[in-house]
């Protein structure tokens, strides 16, 4: 993305899209019983509360009433329908990661992923969500790397088996799966939201677009949680933002007490933010902070900056929900990317303003 002289001024920036991740599938309900919903009605009410606080994108996972992550497609369908009925404009973004927890009873199974075929079933959710998140490239996802004792010591992640499982966790997202998953999601009219861990992931997305394997808007989340992903270092996300196409959207995501400073920087830079207990249980002072409190904090800071908060309808326009393109050329142009080189063409193909 280019930054012009006035790019830090709020009136030149898109209104702020706030994504909330309030279901926290890595936590046990006892880790934050006041804020972790168990019943379906509690799940739905949590979405409504977050929407009312200012969140326009709901990052969705589901729990069974016994507190375990739900592996039932029907529960996802039920939650999506329930949220749609209460807050119809809210963008529903199903977490494509460990949404379906495994059948295994072995210890640490929480951090294992389901088979490719089962993960493709996210394209069959009914009603269809607006977005499903997709990882690109198989990557180490050691979520414990940057967590200090103060972060996880008093939680279920201190269980040694669980700690080890999350420390060794790998996100499976090889080329075959990614290409097939994009095909199925787009065939179902579901927008993929790219969860990218580093520059090679962004480069792979660009290749997918240039090869015609994805023809749609580029909504990108930079996930800077260390442990095989980029660390929450401003040099990393500035490089990511610099390389993101002008027509894409970038949301910054990190974990624990890195969340607030990274979100504040995102807001200053005209990018978008994500908060909620999936990302951090604590505020900067080490006190528990609910997802709604996290949203309220973002809204306060955004107001100080003069950055307006997008309504859900505005967020749908910013994300271009429901939009797909007919050709590689159109996809490149709409996302602000330089055209593909024609056979024999030398130097860079020139990009024309829309």
């Amino acid at each position, binding site marked *: 993305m280019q930054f012009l002289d006035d790019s830090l001024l709020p009136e030149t920036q898109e209104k702020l899209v706030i994504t909330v991740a309030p279901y926290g599938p890595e936590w046990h309900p006892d880790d934050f019983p006041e804020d972790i919903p168990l019943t379906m009605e509690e799940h739905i009410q949590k979405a409504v509360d977050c929407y009312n606080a200012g969140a326009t994108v709901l990052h969705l996972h589901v729990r069974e009433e016994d507190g375990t992550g739900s592996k039932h497609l029907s529960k996802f369908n039920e939650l999506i329908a329930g949220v749609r009925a209460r807050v119809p404009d809210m963008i529903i973004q199903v977490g494509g990661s460990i949404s379906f927890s495994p059948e295994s009873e072995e210890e640490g199974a929480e951090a294992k992923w389901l088979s490719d075929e089962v993960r493709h079933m996210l394209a069959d959710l009914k009603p269809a969500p607006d977005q499903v998140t997709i990882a690109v490239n198989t990557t180490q996802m050691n979520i414990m790397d940057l*967590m200090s004792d103060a972060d996880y010591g008093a939680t279920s992640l201190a269980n040694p088996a669980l700690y080890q499982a999350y420390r060794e966790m790998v996100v499976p997202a090889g080329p075959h799966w990614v290409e097939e998953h994009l095909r199925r999601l787009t065939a179902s009219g579901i927008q993929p939201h790219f969860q990218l861990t580093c520059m*090679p992931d962004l480069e792979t997305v660009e290749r997918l677009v240039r090869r015609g394997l994805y023809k749609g808007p580029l909504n990108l989340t930079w996930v800077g949680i*260390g442990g095989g992903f980029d660390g929450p270092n401003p040099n990393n996300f500035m490089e990511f933002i610099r390389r993101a196409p002008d027509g894409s959207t970038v949301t910054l995501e990190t974990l624990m007490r890195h969340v607030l400073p990274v979100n504040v920087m995102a807001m200053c830079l005209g990018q978008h933010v994500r908060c909620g207990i999936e990302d951090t249980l604590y505020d900067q002072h080490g006190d528990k902070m609910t997802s709604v409190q996290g949203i309220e904090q973002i809204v306060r800071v955004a107001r100080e900056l003069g950055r307006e908060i997008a309504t859900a309808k505005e967020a749908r326009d910013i994300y271009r929900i429901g939009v797909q393109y007919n050709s590689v050329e159109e996809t490149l142009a709409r996302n602000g990317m330089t055209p593909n080189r024609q056979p024999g063409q030398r130097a860079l193909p020139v990009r024309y303003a829309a």
Partner: protein
Amino acid sequence: MIVPSNPSWYEEHIRRLSAAGIQSAFQCYNINSFETVERLMRRGIYKGPLVMNWVALGGGMDQANIYNLANFVRAAPDGAVLTVESSLRNVLPVNMIGIAMGLHVRCGTEDCLWNQSRTAKMSSVAQIEQLVRLSQEFGRPIATARQAREISKIGVFYDTVEESLHANGFAPNRNGGNQGFLLKAA
């Protein structure tokens, strides 16, 4: 293809290599590989010279472009020894950039089978000779094997985290207070 390299494996592997007096040459395929190596050193799991390759093959690793390389070089501490590595016909331009930047180079048929116009195969020796010619154009002398051992500090290990950070040009670990992830127990 996936490179299996989980925390439990690489920590144990580094321990065994170091115990056997073998230097770990870190193959970094992007900035977060480097960041993990930095954490390993700050946590005392590796105490030795920081000798790295920037491996830019695409396909999940960095694309061979100057932004990725510059970002990597900026992150590397001043005491690190950095070799550039890429694949096929990216090898020559990336190596020329590396030579010009004062970094080190890698060539051979594992990386590239072809000459730059792809009119013929190019042997490993022919690739070395090409880099020697180019480096001489730059006025950059070629290290002898003995000099290369000194540059890479072969056989050198450090006793403490502090010494290791200092010798590689890293900022020291923060003292006192909440040390955060920097000093997390292994």
